[in-house]
């Protein structure tokens, strides 16, 4: 499998308070990769490292097969970026902002830019300073898409947008991806949004990558089990026990890597499995972070 983004042994430190340590992250080419994590977990820092805005202390970052340290203009020419905060020049009009952006990208598609502007309801003559947050979000997405990128790096692209604008922006994104087989790396803390559109997920917390796996495995793999007569020590389980909570003789186990045939384990230790509860991505995400922060499961 080829990777649009391949980060190896990355180490970055921002002052004494925060660091990213030994980050290994691989985004399969053509995937929609959801980069999840709570605020301050290092998502935006990772995005900035990817785009060459920050320099790591050590490690390598390959984007679209090229090394960020030495070939960043080549990478940026093939990458569309939507930042967390609007970064365009507010004195320009929508039309001028497009002309400025297009001048730097030989692959810019004017016809599609016009189509997107119409679809988003963006007035060419309005100054950027007069745009609402939603309109600015649409313009940022338009600029990223109309340059026809192979990779889209989106940092909280829908944060603070109303549901209608969010739907428009994501629809345009999915439309582009389905037509061009582009890779999307989308950083967000809006778990439900990523659950709907992403096929891979990476979870970041406190500067570490906690998990990286296909979305389906992530969603299916984390379960809540109701166990009767549980063993005092779980022993050698075929799944990973993330948490245990006792409640009137029945314990609730939160586990990762669960598959149906594994219930034989409980018969082997004299316990019985009463119920298997599916968790949605948000619950799985919260459990994963809780385990990462308190690694020892309560007995």
């Amino acid at each position, binding site marked *: 499998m080829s990777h649009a983004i391949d980060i190896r042994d990355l180490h970055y430190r921002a002052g004494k308070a925060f660091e990213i340590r030994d980050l290994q992250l691989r985004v399969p080419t053509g995937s929609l990769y959801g980069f999840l994590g709570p605020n301050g977990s290092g998502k935006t820092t990772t995005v900035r490292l990817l785009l060459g805005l920050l320099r790591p202390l050590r490690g390598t970052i390959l984007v679209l097969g090229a090394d960020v340290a030495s070939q960043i203009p080549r990478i940026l020419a093939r990458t569309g970026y939507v930042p967390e905060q609007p970064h365009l020049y507010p004195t320009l009009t929508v039309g*001028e902002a497009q002309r400025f952006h297009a001048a730097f*990208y030989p692959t810019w598609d004017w016809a599609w830019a016009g189509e997107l502007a119409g679809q988003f309801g963006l007035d060419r003559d309005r100054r950027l300073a007069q745009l609402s947050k939603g309109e600015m979000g649409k313009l940022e997405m338009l600029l990223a898409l109309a340059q026809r990128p192979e990779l889209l790096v989106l940092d909280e692209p829908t944060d603070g947008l109303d549901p209608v604008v969010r739907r428009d922006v994501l629809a345009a994104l999915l439309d582009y991806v389905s037509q061009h087989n582009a890779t999307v790396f989308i950083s967000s803390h809006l778990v439900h949004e990523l659950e709907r559109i992403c096929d891979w997920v990476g979870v970041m917390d406190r500067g570490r990558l906690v998990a990286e796996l296909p979305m389906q495995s992530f969603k299916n793999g984390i379960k809540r089990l109701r166990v009767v007569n549980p063993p005092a020590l779980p022993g050698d389980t075929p799944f990973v026990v993330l948490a245990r909570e006792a409640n009137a003789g029945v314990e609730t186990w939160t586990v990762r890597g669960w598959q149906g045939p594994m219930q034989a384990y409980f018969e082997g230790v004299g316990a019985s499995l009463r119920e298997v509860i599916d968790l949605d991505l948000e619950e799985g995400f919260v459990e994963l972070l809780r385990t990462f922060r308190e690694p020892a499961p309560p007995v």
Partner: protein
Amino acid sequence: MFRMILFTQWKWARAVVALGAVIAFALPVLSVGQFGREQASRWEVQAMLSSIQSWGVLYPVVAGLLALLIAVLTWSPDHRGRHVYALTLPVPRWHYVLGRFGAGALLLAAPVIALWAGALIAAAAASIPPGLQAYPTMLALRFSLAVLVAYALLFAVASATTRTAGYVLGVLAALILVEVLLSVADVNVHILGPALMRVFLWPGPLEIFTGRWMLIDV
């Protein structure tokens, strides 16, 4: 690409460029404005030279101010966006910086040309007595060099982060404060004087700003 960089800078700085061009045009015209084509008496010649010399003080001031404003306006929108946009454009950084510098320098050509035009008109309109010469082209060249030198220095300072610019200004302020304190304490040590001499006297980088800026001279 350069055309669009120039366009953005024009949008940000057009008011300053237009005002600078008007002032630059007006300076030489006003400096000889009251002296017509009639044969001037000796007293009038002295008065004219004195007037031109007085107005001449303003040329380096205008050059410095224009350079400062254009340098600041060149970088302020990028500073506001924390340079994220510029740094994510697919061009080498030196390429972008050179583009911004070139665009600013090109905009400064407008006041220089305006000053040249004003100087040519003023020289043609004034009654120049025998023994005196008008140097409109030299004055414009000198103005352009002063503007360019000041712009290059201020462009470098303005491109730095606010913190770095603060450090530069802080060091200057500290030097002035030390000089004042030493003078109050009656200590015969001068820091600023020798430093300024090195900067403003040949071969200092700002030597172009010193001396007499005369449209008409002997």
